[in-house]
């Protein structure tokens, strides 16, 4: 404290410790403060020198390879780059707008600990150093372990760093209760169906051979609205090449607008449509007999199974004319094997989703396109050895977008996950880990780590989740923005955004598998740390240091890359290392190997394992609950400029799409007295009321359902831009139907009433919220 301070103001000097005096000063001339009309405009960022760093985008799970352009120490622009198979030089709106989040003033800046004596949800915090915060966490975790055992800590994770917090650390700590919402709230059913049909999962990026197919049938697949960059490019190129498109969707989606045939199928009846197509393919012998003979098992039973599912039967249920169903089946057969029904991504719809996805796979199998050009190709992640470290006591069990998980070994010293036995599949279900926090059955969950998982905007039954959180001894949130669920945590750990950190290698299973690297473009702002650092420091505090032997991420990445003859610097220069894939059956048969992983080594049309477990061995149609009179089924989907519920404080993206609108069929709106642009409330049968939300009166949706974009309606005024805009579909999901096979939570059995003349909230335009610049 060498500052010499005058007596009169004996303050302990500026306790900031920020400023240092280095040299001499130059007088500040007044002249340059008067605006000079002849002076040229100030230079733009691209006029100076611009540095480029390779990375991959984090604004959704697609992880397109990006070139980050830095000028004046600030990230100005991100673009795709040609050599990355995911971006190929192009990006979607969310990827382009992502850097704005790094410079969001509402960002989490430093570790915070909830003020003692306050309730969860009050949002009262005090600052803490990283050491203090991690010690606080370790101490509480040891207490939980001593009283309830290590399994009593649940770990939720999503995003590039979820490897650490939903697989690696839980495995080291000894808790099977690790889950990702991307399984049981998104892709779970399609993965389980694929495991029990083909013996291998669907890759994280739906391996459809777009470049070779000539006939595409989309069922509830919202290409164009969920801008998955590469998929959108391939889809557009396929249409440009003249591929035919059929879209089955209760809503005239963007994809439907590009289709030759739009089938406004009644919600919940897609399986009937698929079964009718199987009926036509089988009874009119349009299926690929050679393919079925060579690769499948149980076809003869399918012939008899599909007899009753005539197009006329399906027409009754789906409200699609029988001859249309028959015509499309024939067209598919005509274009086979280059005709494909791509599996979609978010498939937890009605609770019978595993069977629906199996039905979808079987139609593709009858067309003989699985493993053939124009259908589904085989792909595996490029093999890169892990960093040499001792084996984890417990194999990671959370699964991920890509595949289902391995079972906890029988002789493992740890108990099964709390959701074991609730459903047949082996993946963990995030929504089933909430009840044990309240009921203590089969054993209590007393600790929770939430890494990048928006608890109140992904998991249904939001109020139930809030009650459960209150029972915990420890709730730690690791995130980038002060989301509503984050401000419920005991300890908040701010993670550096993707532009400011290293992350593990992206080993992408794709037609040409590739390895992509993430390199920091700027110094981490504020007091934020990357996920790997938090996991390693916490691991050491928990006495699990032996599982984190690497010094830092550069050492970790370099060591891993050396196992395949590359190194960190080479990846830093190239950004992506592309491998050769083995996409088709032919590529395996040349070495007489079988890519199918089923016990029978065949595609199991008839599933013995399902039969033994008491499920339908072949897909059947189970009618779903219908909305009561005056109510509509609540459907939800994507905006091209938003990701889940995480981009709603991004000024640029909110300026593009600032609030969601509820689509109401014109006739229904007339009956309700709602005009286009009016504001309404949505009220579900459990009495939850959402809104006011703007009504979009449109012809583009059936009369028996309404539609809103997911991710809006942030409740407790979360962040300046996001607060109170639009309605939240998750809040209206007061119930879900558990899929007995995969553990997926069917979210589309919620019905809402539309309550007219809600007050107009008159949201101020985004530009006024960002900065009250002097009025023009």
């Amino acid at each position, binding site marked *: 404290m060498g500052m010499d301070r005058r007596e009169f103001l004996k303050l302990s000097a500026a306790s900031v410790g920020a400023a240092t005096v280095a040299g001499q000063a130059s007088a500040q001339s007044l002249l340059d403060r008067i*605006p000079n*009309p002849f002076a040229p405009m100030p230079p733009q960022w691209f006029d100076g020198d611009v540095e480029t760093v390779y990375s991959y985008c984090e604004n959704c799970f697609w992880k397109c390879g990006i070139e980050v352009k830095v000028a004046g120490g600030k990230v100005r622009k991100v673009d795709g780059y040609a050599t990355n198979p995911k971006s190929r030089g192009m990006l979607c*709106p969310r990827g382009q707008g992502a850097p704005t989040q790094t410079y969001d003033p509402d960002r989490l800046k430093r570790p915070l600990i909830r003020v003692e004596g306050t309730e969860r949800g009050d949002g009262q915090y005090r600052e803490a150093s990283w050491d203090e915060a991690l010690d606080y966490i370790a101490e509480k975790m040891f207490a939980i372990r001593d009283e309830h055992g290590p399994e009593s800590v649940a770990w939720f994770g999503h995003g590039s760093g979820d490897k650490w917090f939903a697989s690696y650390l839980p495995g080291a700590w000894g808790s099977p209760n690790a889950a990702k919402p991307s399984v049981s709230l998104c892709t779970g059913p399609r993965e389980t169906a694929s495991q029990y049909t083909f013996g291998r999962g669907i890759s994280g990026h739906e391996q459809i051979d777009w470049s070779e197919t000539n006939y595409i049938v989309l069922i509830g697949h919202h290409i164009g609205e969920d801008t998955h960059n590469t998929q959108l490019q391939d889809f557009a190129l396929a249409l440009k090449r003249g591929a035919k498109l059929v879209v089955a969707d209760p809503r005239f989606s963007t994809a439907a607008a590009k289709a030759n045939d739009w089938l406004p199928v009644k919600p919940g009846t897609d399986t009937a449509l698929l079964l009718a197509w199987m009926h036509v393919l089988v009874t009119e012998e349009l299926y690929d007999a050679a393919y079925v003979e060579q690769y499948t098992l149980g076809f003869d039973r399918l012939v008899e199974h599909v007899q009753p599912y005539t197009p006329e039967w399906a027409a009754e249920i789906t409200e699609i004319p029988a001859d249309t169903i028959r015509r499309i089946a024939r067209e598919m057969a005509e274009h086979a094997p280059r005709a494909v029904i791509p599996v979609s991504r978010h498939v937890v719809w009605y609770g019978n989703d595993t069977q629906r996805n199996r039905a979808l796979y079987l139609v593709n199998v009858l067309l003989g396109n699985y493993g053939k050009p124009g259908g589904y190709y085989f792909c595996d992640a490029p093999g890169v050895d892990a960093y040499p470290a001792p084996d984890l006591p417990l194999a990671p069990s959370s699964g991920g977008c890509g595949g289902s998980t391995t079972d906890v070994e029988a002789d493992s010293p740890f108990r099964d996950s709390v959701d074991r036995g609730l459903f047949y599949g082996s993946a963990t279900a995030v929504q089933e880990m909430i009840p044990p926090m309240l009921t203590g059955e089969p054993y209590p969950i007393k600790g929770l780590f939430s890494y990048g998982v928006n608890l109140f905007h992904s998991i249904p039954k939001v109020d139930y989740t809030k009650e459960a959180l209150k029972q915990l001894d420890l709730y730690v949130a690791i995130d980038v923005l002060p989301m509503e669920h984050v401000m419920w945590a005991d300890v908040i750990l701010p993670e550096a955004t993707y532009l400011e950190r290293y992350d593990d290698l992206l080993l992408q299973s794709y037609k040409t598998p590739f390895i992509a690297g993430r390199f920091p473009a700027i110094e981490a702002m504020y007091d934020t740390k990357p996920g790997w650092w938090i996991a390693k420091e916490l691991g050491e505090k928990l006495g699990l240091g032996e599982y984190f032997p690497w010094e830092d991420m550069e050492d970790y990445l370099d060591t891993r890359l050396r196992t395949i003859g590359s190194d960190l610097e080479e990846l830093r220069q190239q950004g992506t290392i592309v491998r050769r894939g083995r996409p088709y059956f032919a590529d395996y048969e040349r070495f007489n190997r079988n890519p199918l992983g089923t016990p029978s080594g065949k595609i199991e049309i008839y599933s013995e394992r399902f039969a033994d477990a008491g499920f339908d061995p072949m897909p059947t149609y189970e009618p779903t609950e219908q909305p009561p009179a005056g109510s509509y089924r609540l459907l939800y989907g994507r905006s*091209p*400029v938003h990701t889940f519920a995480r981009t709603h404080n991004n000024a640029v993206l909110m*300026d*593009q*799409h600032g609030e969601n609108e509820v689509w109401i069929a014109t006739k229904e709106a007339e009956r309700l007295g709602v005009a*286009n642009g009016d504001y309404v409330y949505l009220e579900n049968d459990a009495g939850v009321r959402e809104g006011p939300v703007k009504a*979009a*009166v*449109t*012809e*583009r949706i059936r009369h028996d359902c309404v539609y809103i974009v997911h991710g809006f309606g942030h409740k407790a005024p979360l962040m300046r831009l996001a607060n109170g805009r639009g309605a939240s579909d998750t809040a209206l999901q007061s119930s879900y139907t558990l899929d007995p096979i995969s553990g997926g939570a069917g979210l589309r059995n919620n019905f809402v009433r539309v309550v007219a003349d809600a007050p107009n909230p008159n949201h101020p335009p985004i530009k006024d919220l960002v900065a009250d610049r002097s009025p*023009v």
Partner: protein
Amino acid sequence: MVEWYGLPWSQHFWHWPTLFHFAFVALAGGMAFVTMVATLRDHPRKRTYALITMGLIVLDLFTLWVESPARWRFTHVWLFLAFTPTSPIWIGAWGLITSMVASFFVWLDRGPRQVWGALLVIGSSLALVYPGLALSVNVNRPIWSMILIVLFPLTGMVTVTALAMLFKQAWAKAFITPLSLASAGIGVLYLWGLATGVPEAQQGFAYLWSHGGPLFLVGLALLVAPAFLRRTPLLAALVPFVGATVVRSLIVEIGQHQFFGF
């Protein structure tokens, strides 16, 4: 149903201060015209008229400066460093400056009177005609039709004549009624032109009617009124002044709307 991502800049680009500018520029232009006549005729009051002209011009330029988003950039100097005769605003700027300079010398009462008169002829005509021109040059906005080139100078003269009447100028009383009636006539012609014009003009008329039609008719009525108010000069001056300003303001405000119909 129309979905938007981002929005075109279809909001109004001239805000309420502009209406004051259009009122003041009409007075300034009109006053310059009166000063021109006074100078050529060597009218005894020409020096006061010149002073008022300068005052009004300064007031108008100040309003423009306040209304401009570039007020702190002081870039208006470029108006006088460029030569863009196709730009009505450039014409207006030079018109006002010429009138200003000429009025100054008329006020000083020095130098060749005929030359200042000639300058004032140019300056006042440019200043009077440019507001109407600035609107009608935008063919993409149907509500601003060509006839405004006549309507705005006329209503300008109405307001300045009304002002003169208020200050008991003898000559004013004779001109107020013909000018007002002429303005009202052109106003009706303007509405009729829109209503019977090309489809886009008719679309413009419908929009004008729905957003200010009745008020427009009131304006026209106020312009016709002086013919019946000869006995009360005060009213005969105020009523057309208000009428002219209402008509001009409605056209400027509502006319900023454009339609993409094709």
